[in-house]
């Protein structure tokens, strides 16, 4: 079925995949907010939200409805367009990451092989980095456009934090890329499936650095300085209301899911279920098992994020910078050197 030199079926297939993945990400993010409240409650010996629906399962829908029904306030002194652009940008940037994540191997349907990845870009991980660093613009623009001292201060903090931790993150990643030899996420995962061990075995220090930096990039506690409630009133989204605020809060959760997915793909074998031979079952079932495995890994990472958030308090600003520049970057450099030396000695 070729028309005008386009493979229309291919475009439709990709469109369907995009819609499914975007809506699935949003759905998971919706329930991550619920999960966050439940995890927080359980860690603090409380029952958590349990009124809306069975076990409080309708709570995120009620929260969303509340946000939509709220009055939309745009402050007079704000730069209107930028004010509206901010949350949109934050949300877009966090959702764009999902394009290169391999959610599974491939499905065989209607005589076609459907790759469970929106785009197998050969510079996948570089693309992720580019998009993630776009994400900080959402916060910066929002904070600046609000025309509020606290918002501006928080935007500055967010920007400096993101820049500081992106360096260590990139350095940790270089060490990983030296061992994998590819920037494509699909290849990285496939190598781990066929190889003996997951990358975490070769890069434990690299993973630790990457994980801490990912937490900083997502503005999660203990790195939630940009939205420090007690010093900055609420941070960059102080002037926001209604769904624009919802977008900011939501983008944080989508970010969390995406960074979990990327960590699972790069260090924990992506859709690879350990001690299980995929060739023993039908390929379609194997693919679905793969998707389920990746989802479980993502959920475990999200739980880890939440567990850390409800355990430790926020860093002081100088501690944040100390950790970023004096601990993370030297450690990442050391990790890179060691990896390089080992690879060289093996040649």
């Amino acid at each position, binding site marked *: 079925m070729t028309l005008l030199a386009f493979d229309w079926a291919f475009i439709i297939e990709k469109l369907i995949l995009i819609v499914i993945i975007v809506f699935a990400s949003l759905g998971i993010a919706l329930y991550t907010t619920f999960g966050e409240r439940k995890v927080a409650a359980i860690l603090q010996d*409380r029952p958590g939200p349990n009124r809306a629906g069975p076990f409080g399962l309708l709570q995120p829908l009620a929260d969303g409805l509340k946000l939509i029904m709220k009055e939309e306030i745009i402050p007079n002194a704000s730069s209107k367009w930028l004010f509206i652009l901010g949350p949109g940008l934050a949300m877009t940037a966090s959702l764009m990451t999902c394009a290169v994540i391999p959610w599974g191997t491939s499905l065989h349907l209607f005589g076609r092989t459907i790759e469970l990845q929106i785009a197998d870009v050969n510079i996948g991980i570089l693309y992720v980095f580019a998009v993630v660093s776009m994400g900080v613009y959402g916060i910066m623009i929002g904070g600046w456009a609000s025309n509020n001292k606290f918002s501006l201060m928080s935007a500055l903090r967010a920007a400096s934090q993101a820049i500081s931790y992106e360096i260590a993150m990139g350095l940790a990643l270089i060490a990983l890329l030296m061992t994998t030899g590819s920037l494509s996420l699909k290849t990285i995962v496939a190598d781990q499936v066929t190889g003996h061990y997951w990358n975490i075995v070769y890069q434990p220090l690299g993973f630790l650095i990457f994980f801490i930096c990912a937490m900083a990039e997502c503005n999660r506690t203990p790195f939630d300085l940009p939205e420090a409630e007690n010093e900055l009133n609420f941070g960059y989204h102080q002037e926001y209301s209604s769904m624009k605020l919802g977008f900011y809060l939501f983008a944080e959760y989508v970010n969390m899911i995406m960074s979990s997915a990327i960590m699972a793909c790069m260090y924990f074998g992506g859709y690879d279920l350990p001690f299980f031979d995929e060739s023993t079952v039908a390929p379609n079932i194997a693919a679905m098992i793969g998707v389920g495995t990746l989802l479980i890994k993502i959920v475990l990472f999200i739980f880890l994020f939440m567990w850390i958030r409800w*355990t430790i308090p926020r860093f002081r600003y100088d501690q944040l910078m100390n950790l970023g520049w004096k601990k993370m970057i030297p450690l990442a450099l050391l990790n890179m050197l060691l990896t390089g030396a080992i690879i060289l000695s093996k040649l």
Partner: protein
Amino acid sequence: MQALTNKSIAVNRKPMTFWERLYLINIIKGMMITFKHMFKKQPTIRYPEQKREFSPVFRGLHVLNRDEEGRENCTACGLCAVACPAEAITMEAAERQEGEEHLYKEEKYAAKYEINMLRCIFCGLCEEACPKDAIYLSETFAPANYTRKGFIYDKNDLLIPNTLTNATALAKAKGVEA
């Protein structure tokens, strides 16, 4: 200055070691503590379904009592109002007429009897002051209300249902109390 107790601990001002400065070990220790809390029993009482047991000496909403023939005990002597430290009780007395002997126990009764639950401190002094066993503090508390006026409880709200003429209402009231 002398310390009040001998429990004071000198502050440790040693500089942090390398491992301490990495925070990691202490963070993992902290995470273990929170992890243990996941399996602890929740002390929460899920309120509307579950209710906390009151102690046997709990002093709640007031009840105006009747005798075994269903007649009001109160004679509007005003001792409760005098005893009340919060001045929450007001009443007006009236004389019992011919043919009202089945309603009121004695020749004098309270035509109006009001307690302002916002003023009341539930001390129970009215209960102690009453010579006729007419006022008691029950085991319920005043439910929420939309207006201040709604907290002024009059005789209709306070009087317990008549044992003889309205046994079901009494049983219901007792069921709520329990």
